[in-house]
């Protein structure tokens, strides 16, 4: 028998299945069961760009210490897909376990001596106990939930409650699912020593937490921000942002008596049109947004530059996926940073918000509208597939009833009464932001929006000085933006250090875990988590205060490091890249190894 370490509430469970066989609900049930047992848990859905038939995996990490990033190990593998069995077998960490459907024998050649292989005849059990063909296939996936529950000591009562909640008024479904679970559960109990040394044990950490994916949180945030117009073109992995916006609008924005909708969602003909619709709606004074992914931003760049120059509030939500080009649509990366920062031809720069988890997605989905209205500018909310499409355990969302949207500098008829002449692109108070008026309100506020050269009154110009005046004022506005965007968050090391690490977005969890592991090795790192572009004074300060700063990001070309070099005075020799760009969420091992390697090389030099 291979030596197995006892791993209570510290394990990775990975399930390999076939896309489109209903395994998503089975995997979701396992994750939620752990959450309800009070154990910190995270789930990563590693799925193909396919509707049915290709391999798909789900990784669940339970960790009593609260580490939520991906861990580069597999303690228990459930290998349900014969096509990937060999790969799945190879991936199990030494001392780990592999569960497979033993209805059909696996090739003898495929075995390992350093792990424990547990065969459960799932298909056979389901074929013998269910008569309907379709049910047999679906219930096979539910049956492995039962086997895993026995092996990992999951609470059956929790699973029963989950089933009852899911199938509420369909008692037959509850009965069938429960039967399938017990088939797997009883077989495992009868044939193996349950529970395994790798197992779950009730904790009490889930209070005040929810499980939510980032796209749900953004859709909800857009409703709470008072957005009324959503324009979009379907694209993975952003589609569920608009799906959720619609779901919540149906819940909260549909008049119960008349059925009238206080929102308008337009599925555009392409991303170019979606961007145009966002500009049009914001121009007339409605809050409007578009969710998309990298390829969509490429197409929208024309209008993004227009909105920058004509100063139209507009919200662009980018759920990043692997590029370049079509790339890998169902894999994650942080690769649109440069694109978003400088999208469109000519001199353009755009504020970007960088949420690190679904909780921040909700908050920033509100903030992004305030910033767009205040700055009269395109503003990006840059999430990614890992945050957007995976369920994260985060603190409950809170809503401050006193919140009122910041609509920025808008002049209505009452304000126009007090001024002699309205000048659209003139800065009166030094923040670089002019006043705007809304169509439909007052002829004295009428002006002509144009992407062509314009002067401070909004008139067409080809005059060098008039052109340059507007461009220079936009730079003052950029300085104002630095003060308005969310500031970076500093987490200091336990002791003074000249080493720093910078990260943003979904790399946060891996960096937090890596710092603690590195501290045990004697490497102490101050950590600055960036939450926005442009960078505030605190970023400059952090770069000044540290001799070496590791910049952790999920793209090949070190885009954040480049941005830091472009937008601050700090040189390349002190900024060391730690990169993960294979499409999988960054594991803490990547950060630990990258930093350790650098430190060793430095010591040797």
């Amino acid at each position, binding site marked *: 028998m291979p030596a197995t370490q006892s791993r209570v509430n510290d394990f990775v469970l990975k399930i390999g299945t076939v896309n489109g066989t209903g395994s998503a609900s089975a995997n979701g049930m396992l994750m939620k069961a752990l*959450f*309800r047992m009070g154990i910190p848990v995270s789930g990563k859905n590693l799925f193909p760009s396919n509707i049915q038939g290709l391999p798909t995996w789900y990784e669940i990490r339970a960790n009593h210490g609260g580490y939520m990033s991906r861990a580069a190990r597999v303690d228990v593998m459930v290998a349900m897909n014969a096509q990937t069995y060999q790969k799945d077998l190879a991936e199990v960490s030494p001392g780990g376990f592999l569960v497979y459907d033993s209805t059909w024998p696996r090739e003898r050649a495929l075995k390992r001596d350093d792990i424990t292989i547990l065969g459960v005849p799932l298909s056979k059990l389901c074929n013998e106990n269910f008569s309907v063909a379709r049910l047999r296939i679906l219930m096979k996936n539910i049956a492995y939930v039962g086997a895993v529950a026995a092996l990992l000591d999951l609470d059956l009562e929790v699973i029963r409650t989950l089933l009852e*909640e899911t199938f509420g008024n369909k008692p037959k479904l509850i009965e069938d699912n429960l039967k399938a679970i017990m088939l797997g559960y009883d077989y495992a109990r009868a044939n193996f020593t349950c529970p395994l040394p790798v197992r779950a044990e009730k904790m009490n950490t*889930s209070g005040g937490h929810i*499980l*939510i994916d980032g796209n749900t949180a953004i859709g*909800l945030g857009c*409703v*709470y*921000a*008072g957005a*009324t*117009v959503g*324009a979009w073109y379907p694209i993975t992995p952003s589609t569920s942002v608009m799906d959720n916006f619609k779901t919540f609008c149906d819940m*909260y*924005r549909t*008049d119960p008596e008349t*059925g009238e*909708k*206080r*929102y*308008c969602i*337009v599925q555009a*003909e392409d991303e*170019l*049109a979606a961007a*145009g*619709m966002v*500009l*049009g*709606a*914001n*121009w007339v*004074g*409605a809050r*409007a947004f578009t969710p998309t992914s990298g390829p969509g931003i490429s197409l929208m760049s*024309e209008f993004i530059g*227009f909105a920058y120059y004509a100063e139209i509030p507009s919200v662009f939500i980018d759920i990043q996926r692997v590029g370049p080009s079509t790339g890998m649509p169902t894999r994650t990366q942080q690769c649109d940073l440069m694109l978003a920062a400088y999208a469109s031809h000519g001199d353009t720069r755009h504020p970007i918000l960088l949420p690190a988890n679904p909780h921040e997605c909700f908050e920033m989905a509100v903030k992004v509208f305030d910033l767009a209205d205040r700055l009269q500018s395109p503003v990006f909310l840059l999430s990614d597939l890992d945050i957007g499409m995976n369920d994260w355990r985060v603190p*409950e969302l*809170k809503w*401050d*009833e006193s919140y*009122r*949207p910041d609509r920025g500098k808008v002049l209505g008829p009452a304000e126009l009464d007090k001024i002699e002449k309205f000048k659209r692109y003139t800065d009166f108070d030094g923040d670089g932001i002019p006043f705007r008026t*809304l*169509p*439909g*309100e*007052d*002829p*004295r*506020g*009428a*002006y*002509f*929006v*144009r*992407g*062509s050269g314009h002067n401070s009154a909004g008139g*067409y110009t080809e005059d060098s000085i008039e052109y340059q005046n507007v461009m220079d004022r936009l730079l003052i506005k950029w300085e104002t933006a630095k003060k308005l965007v969310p500031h970076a968050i500093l987490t200091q090391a336990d002791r003074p250090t000249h080493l720093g690490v910078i990260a943003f977005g979904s790399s946060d969890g891996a960096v937090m875990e890596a710092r603690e592991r590195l501290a045990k090795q004697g490497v102490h790192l101050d950590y600055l988590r960036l939450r926005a572009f442009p960078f505030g004074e605190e970023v400059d300060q952090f770069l000044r205060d540290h001799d070496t700063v590791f910049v952790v990001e999920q793209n090949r070309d070190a885009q954040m490091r480049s941005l830091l070099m472009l937008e601050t005075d700090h040189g390349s020799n002190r900024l060391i890249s730690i990169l993960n760009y294979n499409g999988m969420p960054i594991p803490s091992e990547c950060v630990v190894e990258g930093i350790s390697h650098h430190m060793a090389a430095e010591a040797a030099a």
Partner: protein
Amino acid sequence: MTYIAKPKVNLPGQPRNALGLLQRDYEGSLSTLCAGCGHDSITAALVQALWEMSIAPEKLVKLSGIGCSSKTPAYFVQGAHGFNSVHGRMPSVATGAHAGNRELICIGVSGDGDSLSIGFGQFGHAIRRNLNMLYLIENNGVYGLTKGQFSASADPGSKPKKGEPNQMQSINPVATAIAMGASFVARSFSGDREQLVALIKAGISHPGCALLDVISPCVTFNDHEGSTKSYAYTRQHMHEAASADFVPPATAITAEYKEGEAITVKMHDGSSIVLTKADPEYDPTHRSAAVRYLEKHRDKGQIPTGLLFIDEDWPDMHGIAGTAKKPLKEFTFDELSPGAAALEKLQRDMR
């Protein structure tokens, strides 16, 4: 272009509309187009139509793309907001504007390059959504600002000033719009003010996407012998299928029409369009008849004008979506945001 602005003198006794405004109040800044450009005549027709309809300037929005045509929104109704967008993308901006405030009267001014090449997709989808707007195409068959290349509406055989005649098929916005399911399709000529003003009014009253294709000769690059978009050629070949008289709401129809010649289309705002058929065989309320009619006259080398198709009952974008009657931008924050208690309740299912 002229650089001498007309003096703003209000002569006593000038007629005022129902809002007490002079026709001068519906003018814009000075045109920078070539002297004699068809587009300036269309601008003048817009000024007249909007003044006669007594449309409050601030309730109007004027949108355009890029090109000679797209400069013109600056030349009418100074008191209306304008949006000179990017090439071929006017319809999407209009869609957003109308989504956010459905009470605005949207006039989109586009050209053949703007709508039939780079913006062909958006042109089609504005029609598909039946976006409530007047969609004007100022059609001259050439790119003026880049000095005379053929556009997609250039007819086969049409000769340029220099070089070879066009050999490709022309994209006909009228036939395309009818085939795509447009609810209002008309064609006019910049040189026929009377017809143009009536069609502009009918198009604005129409509760959906009103496409108005206006042949508007380019005096600099496409008004020569051999061009099929010149003033002379258009005058010789235009053939009015049905003239449209616009009758405002609560106004009695006073003109006399011969029996069997006139069709009265009642609009949802109470106005009427009285169609007088020049051709007894023509029926602009039947889509297939309209397509047949257009094709027949194309074979004869004729350019049918007038109101060519109308279906005033097809629901517009908001009708299809079920959007609130009140403009979305008018809703207060409290009417839009669900509040803390709703958020608390929602999260019970996320535990």
